[in-house]
């Protein structure tokens, strides 16, 4: 059940300033959230939840005003007795005798330096790419009309930018990419995600010959957490699992042949 922000804060025995400090949000904003003047920005919800060690769903987006508190109003700035605010000076400094703004003379603009020679790493990178493209350095030099070694850093960078896309094109023609994941267990993770989101019941066969039925409520690279029909939750290490499938009771038939 979601609670008012101010109630959660007080439960955690935090001042508004402490909450502001922890969450990185301005005090005034938190006061506005607590008073219900504005609803909590979804971007701030996570920060407040983390600062209060609660779930985001535990916080009411629109707090009810605290009983007995009046509406939040911006208070006028208190005057410090004996202090005369200085005209034209926010910090209370005496006004300058010369009211003209002081302009700093512009710095003379430095002449741009000519780019340095190409870095060795750029040259090595270019040579590697040429090798992959099956082209020779001499060909490229003939195309450019000058030796690669004479290129400066900027020109070399531009040249690399033109050669790089050719690598992508040539590789895509020859590279064998099976219908396979980028990461090591993407397909299984997708399957489990779909099962978890769909609330499907899975039937696990374990190495010790036992079975496990239940809804997937979480999983990681090495384990799967299942909620059984009686509500108990079990985390099973994948190393203990032989195979699993959608629960046969939900439609799929028998066990594979032994």
């Amino acid at each position, binding site marked *: 059940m979601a609670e008012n922000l101010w109630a959660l804060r007080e439960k955690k025995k935090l001042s508004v300033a402490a909450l502001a400090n922890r969450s990185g949000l301005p005090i005034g904003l938190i006061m506005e959230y607590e008073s219900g003047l504005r609803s909590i920005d979804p971007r701030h919800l996570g920060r407040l939840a983390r600062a209060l060690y609660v779930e985001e769903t535990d916080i009411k987006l629109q707090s009810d005003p605290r009983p007995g508190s009046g509406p939040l109003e911006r208070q006028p700035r208190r005057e410090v007795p004996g202090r005369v605010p200085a005209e034209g000076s926010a910090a209370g400094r005496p006004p300058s005798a010369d009211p003209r703004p002081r302009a700093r003379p512009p710095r003379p603009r430095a002449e741009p330096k000519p780019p340095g020679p190409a870095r060795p790493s750029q040259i090595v990178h270019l040579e590697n790419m040429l090798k992959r493209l099956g082209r020779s350095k001499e060909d490229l030099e003939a195309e450019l009309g000058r030796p690669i070694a004479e290129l400066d850093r900027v020109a070399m960078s531009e040249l690399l930018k033109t050669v790089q896309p050719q690598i992508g094109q040539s590789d895509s023609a020859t*590279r*064998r*990419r*099976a*219908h*396979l*994941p*980028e*990461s*090591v*267990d*993407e*397909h*299984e993770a997708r*399957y489990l995600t779909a099962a978890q989101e769909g609330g499907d019941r899975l039937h696990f*066969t374990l*190495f010790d*010959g036992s079975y496990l039925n239940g809804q997937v409520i979480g999983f990681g*690279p090495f384990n799967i957490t299942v909620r059984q029909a009686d509500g108990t939750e079990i985390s099973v290490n*994948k*190393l203990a*699992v*032989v*195979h*699993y*499938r*959608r629960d*046969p009771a939900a439609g*799929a*038939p*028998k*066990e*594979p*042949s*032994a």
Partner: protein
Amino acid sequence: MSLGDYLRILRARRGGITPWDIEAATDLPKGLYRQIEQRYRAVGDDESIQVLADFFDVPFEELRWRLDWPRKALSRALVAGREADASITLFLSTGQTVTGRVVWWDLGAVGLETLEAGLLVVQRHAVERWDPRATENSPAPGGPDAGEPELD
């Protein structure tokens, strides 16, 4: 189950001794045990397997046959099955046999469309052997273990 996976289990049964403990206790060259266990392709020879069989006190043949069924060969067979849209039979370490069409596979599991059970997710560490075996000349897997990191 590949030799590497099986050695990992034996190591766990021995209370989780480390590869370094094993190397220290045997005459295996430095780094060889780790390679046998961690590489996807077959690493090791009869001599080193005999050393390990003596160390773990298991029959030589129980380790030796697994050398011919490395993880990479399973990947190759799965790719071949997937590309040919043909069935593959997996013989599991529990004694079960599952046959089906490879829908997907990754480093951890295989999604197999079976007649009996629909889509069955088989954990790769449970697979002992498979049929058909893809030949060495079959297309190399372009999958996650294609770029097996070279150790040392």
